[in-house]
């Protein structure tokens, strides 16, 4: 009983912490987006409030919080108010399922006159065995927030945006899932941790029963699944409703799409949901195709040994090891987030028919081809 409740408490705390992490990253990303877009468009961007305009975030947050919340007269209150909350759930749940660093093995120690541990602290919200399927299932729920918002606002533009968003979500989820099937076939597991572990060391190919090692490259998924990575990357844009796939909120056609009628805090929640989606996508991209939290060519044991030599106490070293790996993941996530932002301010928006034909006629067949080619490649690799 004691053990269970401790576990439950730890998990709840972790989930909450990761949720907060997601929320707290949003202002930084907003700032980055504004500065970045200004940089791309040869403008200055926010630069008055605080150094580099950093305090602008705080001002924005205050503005959002103090705006008067209101609802369209003929809106459907339960749906209208639930939609922004629903926008947060998939992102937060998905981010919780991704391992953000190596597990921390805490040796027994004494604190407050009591022995604690040993305990293995997982650096993720919860370890769910079927990680990939879970992520797909959760992210497929993302369209509900758009649909609810669209219907609840009782606004023509909102509804059109919502229907567009739903159709787009369903369409691109196919390509997304099929791209992940390739990963599934290569690694033969649904668990994120095992996928990350499998990407350690130098690049190792199996061909006709023989092993070929390419020492200069890390053993990352992108070398096994280049096409899959491309499709996954493109589909995540559509799933996150980012430009060039932001048809649901196309401001030129639909005012602001599904969140036309939202303002203030509830609009902020939508933003958090969108950025959360991007964060999840970046973390997944890093996990599946770029080695996750692992550091190229350096094993976690080596990092641990390094910290053991620097500091005293195994637990401190273990924590520092986890932090190091976490930073390694964060570097990748930041890089991908920047790519998300850069693409948004570089590419024009698709037309709706182009979007659909890209999804169904280009990405889906290629994703299928990727699955078939992967199957043949694996079959060839393991036969002599």
């Amino acid at each position, binding site marked *: 009983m004691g053990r269970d409740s401790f576990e439950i408490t730890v998990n709840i705390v972790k989930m909450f912490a990761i949720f907060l992490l997601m929320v707290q990253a949003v202002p930084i990303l907003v700032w980055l987006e504004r500065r970045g877009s200004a940089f791309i468009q040869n403008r200055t961007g926010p630069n008055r409030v605080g150094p580099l305009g950093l305090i602008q975030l705080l001002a924005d947050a205050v503005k959002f919080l103090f705006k008067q919340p209101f609802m369209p007269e003929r809106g459907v209150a339960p749906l209208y108010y639930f939609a922004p909350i629903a926008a947060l759930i998939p992102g937060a749940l998905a981010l919780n399922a991704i391992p953000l660093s190596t597990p921390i093995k805490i040796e027994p120690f004494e604190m407050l006159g009591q022995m604690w541990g040993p305990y293995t602290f997982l650096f993720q919200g919860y370890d769910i065995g*079927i990680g990939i399927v879970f992520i*797909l*299932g959760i992210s*497929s729920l993302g369209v509900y927030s758009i649909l609810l918002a669209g*219907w609840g606002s009782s606004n023509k533009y909102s509804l059109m945006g919502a229907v567009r968003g739903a159709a787009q979500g369903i369409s691109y989820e196919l390509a997304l899932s099929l791209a992940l099937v390739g990963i599934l076939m290569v690694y033969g*597991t*649904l668990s994120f941790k*095992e996928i990350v572990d499998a990407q350690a060391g130098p690049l190792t190919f199996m061909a006709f029963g023989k092993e070929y090692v390419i020492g200069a490259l890390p053993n990352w998924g992108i070398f096994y699944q280049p096409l899959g990575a491309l499709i996954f990357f493109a589909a995540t844009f559509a799933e996150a409703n980012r430009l060039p796939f932001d048809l649901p909120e196309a401001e030129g056609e639909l005012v602001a799409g599904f969140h036309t009628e939202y303002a203030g805090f509830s609009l902020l929640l939508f933003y958090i949901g969108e950025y959360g989606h991007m964060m999840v996508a970046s973390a997944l991209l890093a996990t599946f195709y770029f080695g996750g939290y692992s550091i190229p060519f350096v094993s976690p044991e080596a990092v641990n040994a390094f910290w053991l030599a620097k500091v005293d106490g195994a637990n401190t070293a273990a924590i520092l090891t986890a932090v190091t790996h976490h930073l390694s993941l964060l570097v990748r996530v930041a890089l991908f987030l920047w790519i998300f932002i850069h693409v948004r301010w570089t590419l024009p928006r698709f037309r709706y028919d182009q979007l659909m034909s890209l999804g169904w006629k280009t990405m889906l067949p290629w994703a299928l081809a990727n699955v078939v080619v992967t199957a043949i490649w694996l079959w060839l690799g393991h036969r002599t």
Partner: protein
Amino acid sequence: MTADSLLFFILAAMTVGSALVVILASNPIFCSLALAMAMISVAGIFASLNAWFVAGVQLIVYAGAVMVLFVMVLMLFDLKDEVRAFSRGLVSGFFKIASVAVIGGVIAAAVWMSTETIFSTAPAAPTVNATVATKQLADLLFKKYLFSFEAMGALLLIIAIGAVALSRIEGGTHADK
């Protein structure tokens, strides 16, 4: 044990509650959203039965695709609250509810009588790692049930063609042309 049973009762309550909303709500949009909720709860129930992969697929297929389709179609129809959501007819209504009650009662009674001690836990099979279980499932689907699996593929293709053909008809079943 307590945490598990608590989870089950919460999920069961959610499922039944959403199902009730599905059949009682007068606005079809609420019906469909409640059904989506029910699907998610059923996914939770699958998870509580250690059928992780099935739960995931339930989320992806039912909650993520089928229900979104329903909601989308309903939104496009722009249906308002229905004045008469239920079919009329006192006698047939009585028979309907009575027959359903009998079916439900009989199933419940059957479950009640079929297990020796109704509330004692049946010996559950040993739980296995989710990845291993998924592999077993794949083995079944791609070996034992391969033919059915392929047949399902053919069925889906036919359905896709049929649905497209149906929706391209102009003016419904009694078109003038």
